Structures are given as C-alpha cells and as structure tokens.
C-alpha cells in the first residue's frame, strides 16, 4: 500500500494527530461489527507494537486503548516530534493495521475500509 495521504508542511502536529485519531475511530467503527471490539483493539495495539521499534513515541498506543485517547493525551505523548516524522509514523501505523486486517480476513473487509480511510484523510487536509 502506498502512503495514504500527503500532508502539507502547514499542517500542525495537532492537526495531524487529530486526523489520525479520527481515522482510527473510523476503522474501529467499521471493523468492530465484523470482528468485535476486542479484536479491533488488539489489531491496532499489535500494529503499534510493530511500528514502535521504528517510531518509539508511538509506544503509548500499545498499552492504552486508542478509543480512550483524546487529542490532549496525544499531544502530550507526541511533544517534540516533528510533523513530518509524526505523519510518517501514523501512516505506518495505519498501513500495519490494514496489513493485520488482511492477514486475518484477506480481502473480505479490508479494501472498502481502506478506501474510506484514504478518502477521509484526504478530506481532512
């Protein structure tokens, strides 16, 4: 999968964080009816674990359910991270989420959700 969205240099860290929080919630909304809440959360946490070796600042997502994360928490955890690096990290997280979803269900539900998430991210910028 290619990068989902190109972020302009004018995007602030807060804007990027909020945008990705929104799409994570979108994934949650779409996947939960099929696989359940526990599986969806574990899927995102598993993705966070995989990318945290490259982007250690995302480590907090492994322990904390993303549904409980508010922008203020995200900003606190991500302070000091450049917008470019943050966008790359969150993009990698989304890619891993979809890779995991494909690993479980193949192409049953991942492609339409992927398209929707891409559209959502484009609209947010």
């Amino acid at each position, binding site marked *: 999968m290619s990068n989902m969205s190109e972020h302009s240099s004018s995007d602030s860290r807060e804007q990027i964080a909020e945008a990705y929080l929104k799409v994570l919630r979108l994934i949650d909304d779409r996947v939960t*009816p*099929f*696989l*359940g*809440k*526990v*599986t969806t959360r*574990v*899927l995102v*946490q*598993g993705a966070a*674990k995989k990318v945290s070796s490259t982007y250690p600042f995302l480590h907090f997502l492994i322990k904390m359910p993303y549904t409980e994360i508010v922008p203020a928490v995200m900003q606190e955890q991500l302070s000091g991270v450049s917008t470019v690096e943050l966008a790359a990290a969150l993009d990698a997280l989304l890619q891993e989420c979809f*890779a*995991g979803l494909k*690993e*479980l*269900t*193949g192409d*049953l*539900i991942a492609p339409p959700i992927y398209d929707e998430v891409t559209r959502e991210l484009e609209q947010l910028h």
Partner: protein
Amino acid sequence: MESSVQSQTRPTESAYRSSHIQNGDRIAAIREEMEYLNTIGKSFVAAIDRFQVHRALLAALQELYSFAACSILLKGEPFDLSIIPCYPLSQAFLAAMIERIASAASVIDFPFVSVKELAIASYLDAPDELSIAQEQDKIGGTEICSFLSIPLTVENRIIGMLSLFDEREGTFDSELLKLTTMIADYAAVALENVRLRERETALWRQAEIGRQRLELIISSMAEGLLIANERGGITLLNLSARHLLAQARVDLKQEIPLRELATSSNVSWLPRLVEIIDQGLKGETVMNQELIAGEAGESVPLTLSISAAPLHDTSQSRSRPIGVVAVLNDVTANKQIEKLKDEFVSVVSHELRSPLTAIKGYTQHLIRRIERRLRKTQQEYLQQGKAITTADIPESYDLRSLSIVQSQADHLERLVNDLLDLSRVQWGKLHLHYSSFYLADVLSESVRSVQASAEQHTIYLDIATQDTSIVADKMRLSQVIGNILDNAIKYSPHGGQVMVKLEKQTDEYLVSITDQGIGISPEYLDHIFERFYRVRNTASLQYSGIGLGLYVTKAIVEGHGGRIWVMNNEGLGCTFSFTVPATGRSD
C-alpha cells in the same frame, strides 16, 4: 380534492403493502437466523470436551461455507493447535495452513510461536467419516486460495484463534462474516468451559491424590491421631490411636460427644481425655499432657502423652474452633525407665546413707580425739614454759585433713538427702509433720546459718508482719529457705546483698528472696523447678549441684498447699517467691 386524495392514497397503500411484505421477509429471516443460532448454541452447550466442540464448530461452519479445513489455536503453555479437516488434506496444504496460522497469530498479539513449534504442537482432529474418503484416495489440493482468521474472545480476552481455509478462491463471504464471528464466540465460550472443566477435574484429581496421600500418612503414623468436632465427638482416629485407646472398649468413633461417653461408661481415663479436648475447643493448645490409659494394678500402666490444638476454619478469622486435633504418644516405655531409675536412685541413696553415717560419725570422733590431744599437748608445752601455737603441732595437719573429710561428707549427705527426698516425692511419700511455730524464727535461723559461711554476702531479713505464727513442717520449711538461700549465695559469685522478706497475705505468708547474682536466662525459667534440670549456660557451668534442690523445694511448698515461682529482676539477679498457708494445708 377527492381524486387528489385517492391519487395520494393509492401509492401509500401500495407502499404499506410493500413495507409489510418486506417486514414479513425480515421477520422470517431473523426467525431463521435465530433458529440457526439456537441450534448451534445448543450443540456448543452440550459439548463436554474439546472434540465435541470441534464437531459442533465444524457442523455450524459447514452450514455457512463449503471449505477444506478449519483450525483452532489456543493460548497456553504449550500452545494447542487442532486442525479439523473437512476432507483429507495434502501435506503441502497442511504445511501452508500452519504457516498462515503463525502469521495471523502475530497480528493479534499472540506470544511468538514459530511455524516449527506450531507444526510440532498441531493435532489433526479428523472426523471419523474421513477415514472412508481416505480409502477412496480423495486428497485435496496443495494451495490455500481462501482463508479467514477470527480471534476467539471470552470476556474481553483473546483465548485463541479460529482459522478457515479453502483451496478455492472466494469461498468466504463478507455478508457471512458477522455470523462466522458469532459462531467463533460460541466456540470460544464452549472451549473456555471445557478448559475450566478440565482444570476443575485436574484440581479435583490433585485434591483427591492429596487426600489419599494424607490418609496414607495418617494411617501409617506411629503416633496416634485423633480429631474431634466442635461438639467434642471423635471424627477421626487413625490405626495407632485405635490401638492405643482400645482398652476403653467403647466405640469412640461414633461422633457422640466424649463428655456423654465419659458419663455413660466406666472408663476411668475418659474424663481426663474430655478435659484435654475441651481445652482445645476453648482455643488453647495443650502440650504433653499425661493420660494413664492402662488397667489399675499394673506396675507401669499404659501411659499416653497427649498434645492437642484447636482447629480453626481458615475461611473465618478469629472464629471459635471447629474441632480439635490431638496427637497421642505411648510413653509407657519412658515411664518404665523412669520407674527403674527412681528405684535405682532410691536404693542407692539408702545404701549410701549407712556408710556415710559411719564415715561422718567416725570422722567426728577422730576430730574430737585430735582436738583433745592438741589441747593436751599445748597444755604440756605451757607447763614447760614453752610458747607454742596449734600450727606447730603435727597433729594439727591431721585435724585440717579430717575437717575437709567432714565438710565433704556433709556435702555428700546433702546430696544423698536430696536423692532420698526425690524418691519420696516420686513415690508420694514426702510426709509433712505439722507443728506450730513462728516463721520469723525459722527465717532468722536459716539466715544466720547461711550468713556464717557467706562472708562476701550480706543477707538482710525484712519481717513485714507482726504475726508470724504458722502451722507447717518446720524442718521442711527450713530446708526450702536453706535451698533458696544457698542458690542465692552460689549464683552471686561476686558477693552482694541478699534480701529475705516475709509478708502476710490474707491466709498465707509470702516469702521472697532477692539476690544480685547472675540471674536466669528467660528460656530456662519454665524448667528451673524440674528434676535434674540444670541451666546450661557458660556462666552456670562452674557451679556444683545435681539439679534436685529446687525440685524438692517445689514439692515441699506444694505439699503445704503453697506456690513457688521465680522472676528475673530488672538489671541484676532474680527473686524466688513462695507462699505457704498460715494454718496448714486446707484440703
């Protein structure tokens, strides 16, 4: 208006009919789905082992899809992977399945497991009917073209993963994914129930093995073991206890309270046993209580030593005991040895006394003769006008030697007397000869006597009462005071003060003797009055004695109906106290 209304009404009725038909279809679909879920739910609930869960799962999934195989990977140490084929599978297909399972497991945060480990742990749970197909040589393809993995969750925990595989493309349907997840949920709960049931069975087996082992230990114990319930009825008697208590000729193990059995039977020792059990039921721990369970008239009857402790319900803190556990030891052999020892001591001390009396008598006689001779010699020298001291006369050396013999004979006599007193106490023959006298006089005499040979010490006598008249055994009370005073002097090697105090309390006198000596270590305080007991510390090793003085002293005091005890003073020495009734023993 009317036509307009009519024209408006017609489409509405049509829409209503259409909606009604749609609702009917929806209700029928829901009913069908519910019936389906009810059917599979029942089959999962009825499953009592994992193989039945596998069968139920396979049946439910085959209602939805036609596929090659499914697998269940369960978390645990070690992993548990069951592969359930719908038809015979090729080795290549199985290998591809395991590879895909390992890959999917990594996505849902399963502990890492390699393909090799999974292959080793995998178990092929093929339905029986597949054996027929295998005979017909119908083996499936080698490549996985469709797959689906759904985590198995119970109460927000992922316990495993269900995976479905097929060799054809497009086998699984997103429309049926929710239903498949629902089936996975059923399977997860059923598997968790099976796991809990297996755990319960394993724990039960473990408990049963523990119970059997405990029963074996209890039945093999050389010591008798008795357990009584909260009413004092015996609920358990091991083999040894049954043998030891066989002389009762009463069925003790019938849960009838021992108190009732003691009343209705004429077993002489049952009341004593009741007493011990009752103490345990009051929450007290009793140690080494003697119970003579033998026949009257036996020279050494069967003697048991019983220790009992309360049993508390561990689920309730600070509760009343729910029973008592008692351990019985046969100490008859010890009693026999003790009896032989007592007899030996009694005989030896009697036999020693006769030659000792002769030694003392002749020594006394020789001392007097030499003293006379010395006086005579001195007078002869004086008459000759020569000045001479006793030390210049050779016989004075003989006198000194004889004095040592006399002193040692006195010491030996005291030891023999102690041994004789021990025998008397042991045989219950320590007879007291009561007479009226003044206790103050006995104390004064004893203090004077001991002070004469204790130059380093100062003994004070404090008589804190006007009336000191008493009815008691004068000689024995003098022995008591002498023994305690001797100890006070002996264990105060650097001298110091010894305070003897006499007080009157209601019907008894209290005598306390306080020294400034080495004191007694707290761990020895409880044993100090036991026979042949000597405090074993380096400080007391240098002091002579055989550990009978305080034993006899206690017997004399208790023979009078009094009490004796000892306490360490704060800082220095200890205080021995005893009471003695003023008017003789009340009972």
